[in-house]
């Protein structure tokens, strides 16, 4: 019997096989760090008199707790400032490369790694952030870890881990118009549930996945964690190699050829068996939005808010009742009729240049709905520069959106970009938990296309709603 890609990646990184129920010791090729989950890890190292084993396999950025305005001024919030200062002091003390606020390579850690070419096929990648699953789009085994594990990797460049189970998620066929990677992953999570992926590495396969760009693949893998999975994975192919080639840390010359020979072996064998198989038809998909308070509570945009009374499973029914109460929604309301106050375009899920291009194409020549605030936050400073070179910033500002500096921004209620209590957003980020975007804030997860169309109409919309509106006019 053959092996899956996840198993191949695992086996090629085992430093020591665990015996008698002990975990395997796995080597880590790339460790990314940010200011929020690392200070206690560095403190642990200091207390134990330990050092960083491989600063040359470690990279840090500032993203979660940074403002997206006035980045040239001292950070106003003193605890946030202390956390950033601590990151800088730790990087200096332990010799770690850090891309600070204001640096051209600063940005959301999961945008920065790939754009520098540090994320490559066949690697193990970890970060003290659950969305590390993003890097699985390159055919790398990439997963989020806690602070104790951050300390462990800093000290040893390894992690003791038990093997994950494998799940194949096959998306057959071709995606309909205006249906994107974000809609695929929201549909997957709605199908398997927020706990459905627990203990698994999800390998996304099939024609619709192969047809996605690298950035779209990153969107899919990014939200694997929202299905409870440890990691998401897509086998590398020509699209992957083309994306990596020429990036600052990509191999060159003979090294490129050697790397490519290896990368081409990174496929699940035809006779390999997955622990679980899930199949979706791309043709059945359409723009997807969430109505509740976990990412599994999503439906096609054409649907209506569900009635909890119709849900058979008691746990899910109670969860839906609580969600509707929090979200301030009535069963039966058409999702398209839900009005929002804020549209957020950005995050490690949808803050890349293609996301900005897709949204800008919808917004160009249109004007913003009254009373709606739109924040556009590039995933990295390089994405911002690229967007400006293409004139996208002008499209956003002409439309009436705010054009910000790079960071996690409104994806999590930590930095100054937050929803006020009761405010409702259409957000291209990854979590719609209670209070995630600010205490009392209500979040609907959407694709960049839906975000843009929603900013035009003021209610949850897809670009096709704009076309039909202009035809009627």
């Amino acid at each position, binding site marked *: 019997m053959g092996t899956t890609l996840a198993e191949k990646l695992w086996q090629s990184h085992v430093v020591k096989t665990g015996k008698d129920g002990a975990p395997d010791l796995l080597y880590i090729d790339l460790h990314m760090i940010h200011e929020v989950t690392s200070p206690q890890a560095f403190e642990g190292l200091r207390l134990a008199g330990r050092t960083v084993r491989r600063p040359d396999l470690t990279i840090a950025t500032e993203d979660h707790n940074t403002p997206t305005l006035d980045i040239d001024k001292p950070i106003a919030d003193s605890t946030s400032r202390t956390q950033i200062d601590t990151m800088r002091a730790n990087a200096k003390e332990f010799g770690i490369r850090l891309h600070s606020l204001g640096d051209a390579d600063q940005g959301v850690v999961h945008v920065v790694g790939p754009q520098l070419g540090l994320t490559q096929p066949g690697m193990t990648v970890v970060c003290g952030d659950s969305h590390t699953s993003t890097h699985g789009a390159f055919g790398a085994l990439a997963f*989020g870890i806690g602070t104790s594990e951050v300390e462990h990797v800093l000290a040893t460049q390894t992690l003791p881990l038990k093997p994950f189970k494998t799940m194949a998620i096959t998306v057959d066929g071709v995606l309909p118009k205006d249906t994107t990677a974000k809609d695929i992953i929201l549909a997957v999570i709605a199908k398997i549930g927020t706990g459905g992926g627990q203990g698994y590495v999800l390998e996304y396969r099939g024609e619709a996945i192969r047809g996605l760009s690298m950035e779209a693949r990153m969107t899919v893998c990014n939200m694997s964690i929202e299905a409870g999975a440890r990691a998401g994975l897509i086998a590398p192919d020509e699209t992957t190699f083309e994306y990596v080639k020429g990036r600052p840390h990509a191999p060159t010359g003979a090294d490129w050829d050697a790397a490519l020979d290896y990368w081409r072996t990174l496929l699940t064998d035809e006779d390999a068996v997955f622990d679980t198989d899930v199949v979706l038809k791309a043709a059945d998909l359409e723009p997807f939005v969430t109505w509740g308070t976990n990412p599994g509570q999503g439906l096609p945009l054409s649907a209506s808010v569900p009635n909890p009374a119709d849900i058979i499973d008691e746990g899910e029914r109670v969860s839906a009742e609580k969600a509707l109460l929090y979200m301030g929604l009535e069963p039966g309301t058409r999702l398209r009729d839900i009005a929002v106050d804020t549209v957020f375009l950005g995050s490690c899920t949808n803050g890349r240049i293609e996301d900005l291009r897709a949204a800008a194409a919808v917004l160009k020549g249109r004007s913003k709905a009254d009373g709606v605030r739109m924040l556009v936050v590039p995933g990295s400073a390089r994405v911002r520069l690229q967007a400006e070179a293409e004139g996208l910033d002008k499209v956003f500002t002409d439309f009436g959106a705010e054009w910000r500096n790079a960071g996690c921004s409104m994806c999590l209620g930590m930095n100054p970009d937050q929803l006020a209590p009761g405010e409702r957003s259409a957000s291209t980020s990854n979590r719609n938990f209670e209070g995630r975007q600010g205490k009392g804030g209500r979040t609907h997860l959407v694709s960049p296309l839906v975000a843009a169309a929603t900013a035009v109409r003021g209610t949850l919309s897809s670009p096709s709603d704009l076309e039909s509106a202009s035809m009627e006019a």
Partner: protein
Amino acid sequence: MEKFVTHTGVAVPLCRSNVDTDQIIPAVYLKRVTRSGFEDGLFAAWRGDPDFILNKDEYKGGSILVAGPDFGTGSSREHAVWALKDYGFKVVVSSRFADIFRGNAGKQGLLTAEVGQGEVELLFKLLEEEPGRTLTVSLEDRTVSCGDVTVPFEIDDYVRWRLMEGLDDIGLTLEDELAITAFESTREAWRPTTLPAKHLPSVPIESARSVS
């Protein structure tokens, strides 16, 4: 790490599923650089409600949390484990834990006892009938007992051994340092390194300003 063999304490029934880490501790509490004092952030949004279970007198001093399935989903923040521990919880009982949360808990000596959903509901019933009851959790026997009712729980053998011995994971791994060095000597030379740093030319980044 402190050894964990058995624990008896007041149990708190949190009758919710999908208790994500943003509920356990909202992001605003993650700005600190210390490793203690996170108890004020625990369930911060819900604790504003006087009817929230932790605000009830009979659950004061609770040290065992019993919750519905998919406890600890979402963010990898270990602060969620620190907040539970700093508040005084020693054990969380649930029918399903998110992987990263369970891993973090194991590293920090917070016991995650996985029982069947039927058993969670049985415990909810017993605890609601007589609020403030104590449970006894035996890691040695892998059981949760409430009066004369005893239910088994599951935990990874290796994690159980480590918790019962109170062992430090990093110390254990460093015993294998020779194996790590040997592995490193086999890594291909073209594998990327972050240093020396390579990047596109540095250019000044203009600061965005508030439009309002």
